[in-house]
């Protein structure tokens, strides 16, 4: 689907030779921090930006040559909810329907699960909606013309946790109805809900796999450590002789040892001794399986790693 696509803006290389393929009916995630090139990639796929190198095909159509054919068949929700704030919910929806030469009624059954939730506010101006409702409206607008593929660029930014979860439930429903969905997200918990995820960083795709597999390829022994005096614990762990990286992770600290293939239990024992020596009481050290976020941290280049 995407072959070696590259894009630079002036001296900045926004996207450097990215290749991947998305299967029909798949919920495909692009995960990565801001500036990873997710938006640029989406804009190439939605024909908004020309790739400097490589090529992209969407629905078997060339993203450059078949621009107009692609445009009538994709649904696109850009980074910010681009709605007309001074138009009502219904006016927004019917406008975007007409732009694609259709009507709300014709697309209703597809958008119903989402749109029915905001339909009581059909006469309200879009500006007066909450973040979650705006998001639902924006998704309805992107879906009303029954696209063959849906592009959602960070669709949950500025939306509360409950709405985010609902939103992802709805994406799964849409996926189950056969729609191909590409979604980008900076949140790893959302990436977990995709069928496959591409980890992106600095214009490159680092890894593509199903979310649970991405962690399994973690190359080094990883430990979850809990204890009091969390901040001092973090600093002391970073000073440990074989420390590769230490990150706060929820209530825990995730410690990665730089000795690949070493017996985790031996390392855990060493760590307990070291921390005991440093004066920490009741410290729990547990060898764990890496998650997607650990992989992501690991895949980040060193300078950024130190900064965080």
């Amino acid at each position, binding site marked *: 689907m995407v072959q070696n696509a590259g894009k630079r803006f002036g001296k900045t290389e926004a996207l450097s030779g990215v290749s991947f393929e998305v299967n029909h009916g798949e919920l495909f995630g692009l995960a990565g921090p801001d500036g990873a090139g997710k938006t640029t990639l989406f804009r190439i796929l939605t024909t908004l930006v020309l790739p400097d190198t490589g090529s992209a095909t969407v629905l078997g159509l060339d993203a450059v040559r078949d621009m107009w054919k692609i445009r009538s068949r994709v649904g696109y929700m*850009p980074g910010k909810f*681009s709605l007309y704030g001074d*138009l009502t919910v219904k006016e927004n929806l019917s*406008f975007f329907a*007409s*732009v694609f*030469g259709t009507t709300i009624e014709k697309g209703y059954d597809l958008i119903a699960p989402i749109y029915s939730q905001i339909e009581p506010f059909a006469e309200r101006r879009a500006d007066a909606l909450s973040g979650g409702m705006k998001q639902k409206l924006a998704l309805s*607008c992107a879906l009303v013309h029954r696209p063959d593929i849906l592009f959602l660029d960070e669709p949950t930014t500025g939306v509360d946790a409950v709405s985010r979860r609902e939103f992802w439930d709805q994406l799964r429903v849409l996926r189950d109805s056969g729609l191909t969905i590409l979604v980008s997200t900076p949140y790893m918990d959302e990436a977990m809900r995709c069928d496959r995820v591409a980890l992106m960083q600095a214009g490159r795709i680092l890894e593509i796999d199903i979310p649970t597999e991405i962690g399994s390829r973690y190359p080094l022994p990883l430990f979850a450590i809990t204890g009091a005096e969390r901040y001092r614990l973090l600093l002391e762990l970073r000073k440990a002789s074989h420390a590769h990286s230490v990150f706060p992770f929820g209530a825990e600290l995730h410690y990665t040892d730089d000795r690949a293939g070493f017996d985790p239990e031996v390392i855990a024992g060493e760590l307990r001794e070291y921390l005991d020596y440093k004066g920490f009481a009741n410290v729990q050290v547990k060898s764990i399986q890496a998650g997607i976020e650990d992989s992501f941290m690991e895949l980040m280049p060193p300078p950024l790693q130190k900064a965080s």
Partner: protein
Amino acid sequence: MSPTLLAFIVKELRHILRDRQTLTILLLMPLVQVVLFGYALRSDVRDVRLAIVDPSPDYATIALRDRLVAARRFKIVSVSPSMTSVEPLFRQGKADVAIAFEPDFAGHLHGNGPAKLLLAIDASDPNTATTMQAYARAVITSYEAEVGAGLNQPIRIIPDTRMRFNPTLESVNLFVPGLIALVLTLVSALMTAISLSREKERGTLEILLVSPLRPWQIIVGKVLPYLGLAFANVLTALLAAWLIFHVPFRGSVLLLLSESLLYAMVSLALGVLVASLTTSQRVAMLAALLVTMLPSSLLSGMVFPIASMPVFLQWVSAIVPARWFIVIARGIMLKGVGLDYLWRETLVLLGMTVVLMGIAVRSFKPRLE
């Protein structure tokens, strides 16, 4: 019209109607401006085109003619025996002032009566008209004094002044056409530029681009509603001018309205062009002010007569659409002339519309870069 385009226009109309404050300002603006503009600026005039009517040339009329030319303010464009040939010159704007001597001017001068002459002035621009009148009278008075002194007896020349087209020298008559141009520029260019760049800023343009909408549809959809608003503004300005200041309306209303629409098209094209070359509402607004409002008010001949501008600015004014529209509007309103006299200016506007619209559609990119 395709339903898609129609939907776009409906959406655009809603934007306009929802923003009550802006709409109120836009609708009241022509009214306020007509009321506020009660004055205009004085101006210096050179190269006044003079038509001479001299049924019986004699030494006195020839001497006076020479003096007028020697004053360097005037240049004679025609000499004829009767007033009838002067009329078309005025209508076509080929003469600014006409001086008609009575028959046997020299005889009257030295005989028993005062010698009479008629001073007719194109007063559709009252500022220049007053100035031209003052020049002509000054030349006549000085001739009178000089000849009188040489003859050792006073002679009398009685100039009878007639202001043509704008007999009461109402400057309101002059500025209403200019005002229409200004209001049309403001609504058409500025508002279109703002409204289009708002779509850019809000990110809605990004969605519109990723849709089957073609650039020309987006532009037409943007432009048409504002054309309607501009039309309403022209009507307001004309009604206000007519009801409050009794500005005469001598020509065809239909022609003036069509010419106004043509001028609005030029401005709209400029607005679209500005919006497609800028990235934010603020920049678009400032750019639109710079390229449309300023030239339209300062270089169009609305306030400062083009004739008194430096040659360089006269050249610049030729590419200001408002200049041509003001000539048209003044011609229709104050002189009552029709297309047969204004076809050149109309063609210029038409050409500008085609060229600017073409550039606007081309510069409106179907992609983000």
